[in-house]
């Protein structure tokens, strides 16, 4: 859902900026929109958008939890669970 939210915000933001550029440059919408899109020579904005989507994907796919599960220490967790059980009993 985070990826979708970022995607919607990006598309709507680009449309809004293109709409304003139509008023400023008095050019057709499609031309202004294409000019606005981050394409090859202007790589900096491409990287920024890509980073935004990577971050959103990281959150959506719970990468931190997955990596913790795979590589994190498990002994502490077990210990805490044991303690909780002992307290409950």
């Amino acid at each position, binding site marked *: 859902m985070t990826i979708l939210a970022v995607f919607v915000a990006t598309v*709507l933001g680009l449309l809004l*900026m293109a709409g304003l550029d139509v008023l400023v440059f008095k050019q057709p919408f499609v031309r202004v929109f294409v000019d606005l899109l981050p394409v090859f020579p202007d790589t900096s904005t491409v990287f*920024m958008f890509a980073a935004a989507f990577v*971050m959103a994907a990281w959150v959506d796919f719970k990468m931190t939890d997955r990596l913790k599960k795979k590589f994190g220490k498990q002994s502490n967790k077990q210990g805490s669970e044991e303690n909780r059980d002992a307290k409950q009993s």
Partner: protein
Amino acid sequence: MTPSKVNPVDTFTLQLVFLLSTSIIFGTPSVVPDSWLVGLVAFFPACLFIVLYSAMLSSQHDLGLYPMLEKAWGKIAGKMFVLLYAIYFLYIAARNIRDMIELVMSALLRITPVPILTSLFIMLIAYTALGGIKAIARFASLILCIVLLMLVTLAVFLMFSSSIILEQMLPFLSKGMWPVIQSAFTHSLWFPYGEIIVFLVFQPELGGAKGFRKITLYAFISACIILTISDLLQIWSLGIESKKYSVFALLDAARLINIANIITRMDAVVALIIIFGTLLKCSVFLFACTEGIARIFKVKTGKLTFPLALVAGAFSILVTRNSAEHVTEGLKYVIYTMHIPLQLLVPLLTLILLRIRYRKGAAT
């Protein structure tokens, strides 16, 4: 559970720094010779924003802007308006980042690549926004002290370097009062005063209608006084004509400081003022945007902060191609197409709808 309220002093400093941040650097747009009067004149109609927004808040028991829109316009249209406001706040954040980058590029870091500056700055903004409105408000007190101290320092140094010539503000009202009133209604009313609408989003945490009315009025009065003094300083040191053609008038005024060839190049101080101010303003806008988007997509706000900050950073690079276009777009097109509808028309219609739909004793 009701959210804990932000301290009224912190709310006041937050609103004051928010109002001062970018407007102090650009000053009042010099479309008329007596631009310092424009800020004063704009204050009076700006108070109508306080009346309108506090009427909205009191009609719905201090509900935030987004739930209020949904309540007034219905579920689907309300969500569309929430999305519209979220994108508007994101766009304004992007424009403010661009303002800051333009100034830093011209004053401090001339050969540093823009994407690097932007990326570093948006990381700071995102980190500030991640703390929530309470953390931003506490941070505002510190920033206000720094900004005011630097402004006073600037004024004192300008005075000691004999750069202040009071006659530079003459001729007074050479074209009459009408252009001043016109400029107040077409520019200064919407920026910065109208942008206070963003604080409606956080009203459950900021104290509701009663607090909003009082605190915002004090913030408006303080901002009006400080901005007028800043405009006067710019005119006294640069003159009416030079100020008209200067993009960053306060920066140019700071460049005039020269006390016995020892204290010079004070433009870095001005750059610091805008860096701190913009940091806070963008954090507020980014947080408001994440709240809106999170509400629609039912995600936690914290998860959206960094991705949306990066999007705002990319938008700040794409938003305009050069400085001249940036200023023209901001002064002309953004005001008529975005500020007026979203700061006045939609809130006014929302208030009318709320009053009709939720009349006292009337079932909806």
